[in-house]
């Protein structure tokens, strides 16, 4: 009797061992999880590497919530935002703002000063004269009238009081050219705090990535062909290791008038669209800078643009109006240019 029981026990043990070993045969493998939401008036996609859907979901919930919160503070079109409060009180009084808003405005001012005004968060007074939807371009006289209202030096920030003040009535700040990068950086901080070892946050084309994909491969980002037909027409790829990348182009918001392309990257000094460049891609540690510098470099033109990027310790790829490629030295080994699918002859 005893022997029989022992034999049964042996067989059951053998079967149980087989079952257990096959279950642990697929160990807690890290996988990629992706989620998109519409925030900041655009599509935000977060990809994380995690061991479980729950771990990924919890972290992504927090990251999206942070972006949503920032959107509330910075939304130009929302009367409740801090940006709107600053604009309403232009020429009247300083407005108390949260540390995040102040931080963003300080960095905007830093990029403005460092780019000699090529990036200017107060350029809205002139850009608002254009309507890219209805294809409206303002007359030169109106632009000249409004240009005095464009001056980042008239945005007074007080760190100790935590206030922001636009000196002249009619001036506006619009965080559109820097908020997406800022949000991507904040989302990354939230993901890191949530214990995620690797992630890619894409706020439309403003991207920040850290860590490596499963298998140790770097994140791979494509750069859009400025004259391609859609998002998957890419002209180059760059591996991202703990880096951010942003692209500004003359194809994002534009219309053609009399054979000329009227686009949204308005030179704060002239009030007209900056010429000579089709797109600029900036690469570097923080998305808040790649976002704002992409605009600054675009407006500065090829020579000044590359120098501006380097002055900030960032790198840039510029495609000029003829399709010519220019880049800072450090990018020359890292960017892989793809054969252009389409002929570049269009305006």
């Amino acid at each position, binding site marked *: 009797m005893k022997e*029989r029981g*022992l034999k049964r026990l042996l067989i059951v043990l*053998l*079967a149980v061992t087989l079952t257990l070993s096959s279950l642990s045969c*697929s160990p807690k493998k890290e996988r990629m999880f992706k989620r998109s939401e519409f925030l900041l008036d655009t599509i935000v996609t977060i990809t994380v590497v995690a061991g479980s859907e729950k771990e990924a979901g919890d972290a992504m919930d927090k990251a999206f919530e942070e972006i949503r919160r920032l959107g509330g503070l910075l939304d130009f079109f929302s009367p409740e935002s801090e940006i709107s409060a600053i604009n309403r009180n232009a020429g009247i009084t300083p407005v108390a703002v949260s540390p995040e808003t102040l931080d963003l405005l300080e960095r905007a001012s830093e990029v403005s000063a460092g780019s000699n005004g090529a990036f200017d968060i107060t350029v809205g007074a002139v850009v608002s004269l254009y309507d890219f939807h209805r294809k409206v371009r303002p007359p030169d006289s109106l632009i000249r009238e409004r240009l005095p209202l464009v001056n980042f030096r008239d945005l007074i920030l007080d760190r100790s009081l935590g206030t922001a003040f636009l000196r002249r009535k009619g001036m506006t700040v619009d965080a559109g050219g820097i908020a997406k990068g800022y949000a991507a950086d904040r989302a990354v901080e939230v993901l890191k705090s949530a214990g995620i070892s690797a992630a890619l946050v894409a706020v439309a084309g403003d991207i920040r990535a850290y860590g490596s*994909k499963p298998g140790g491969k770097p994140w791979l*980002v494509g750069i859009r062909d400025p004259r391609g037909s*859609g998002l*998957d027409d890419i002209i180059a790829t760059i591996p991202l290791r703990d880096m951010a*990348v942003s692209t500004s182009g003359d194809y994002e918001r534009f219309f053609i008038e009399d054979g000329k392309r009227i686009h949204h990257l308005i030179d704060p000094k002239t009030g007209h669209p900056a010429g000579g460049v089709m797109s600029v891609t900036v690469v570097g540690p923080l998305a808040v800078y790649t976002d704002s510098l992409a605009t600054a470099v675009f407006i500065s033109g090829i020579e000044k643009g590359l120098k501006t990027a380097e002055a900030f310790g960032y790198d840039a790829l510029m495609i000029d109006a003829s399709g010519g490629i220019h880049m800072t030295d450090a990018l020359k080994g890292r960017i892989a240019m793809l054969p252009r699918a389409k002929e570049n002859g269009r305006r």
Partner: protein
Amino acid sequence: MSLARETFKEITIYDWVLLVVLVLVSISGSFLVRGIASTGDTVRIEVGGKLIYRLSLSEERTVEVRGPAGITRVEVKGGRVRVADSPCPNKLCVRQGWTERGAIICLPNRVVVTIGGDAEGGVDAVSG
């Protein structure tokens, strides 16, 4: 007699059946876990972040999804996808035409059409 030989003599057919069943169950476990892989021929259509359709790229189909601006019509044919019609002002999504990879987005109607799963040799995101 040794314990081993004794054991084998005493094992009944039911014991063998039990053992085979257990082995089969444990082997099939590893197949199931590996099966949730991302395929390159899935089309996902999301509206406002919610997945509405998951279609196969190899099956000819036309679907309509409703977003805040109206109806967006998506066609799958010959291994390619396109947005046939959408209620947005610029119709950029429609002008993109047929594609077999990447994504087509209609921002005003909150529609996102994605082809394929993770990038294998492709890119993880596009800046621009």
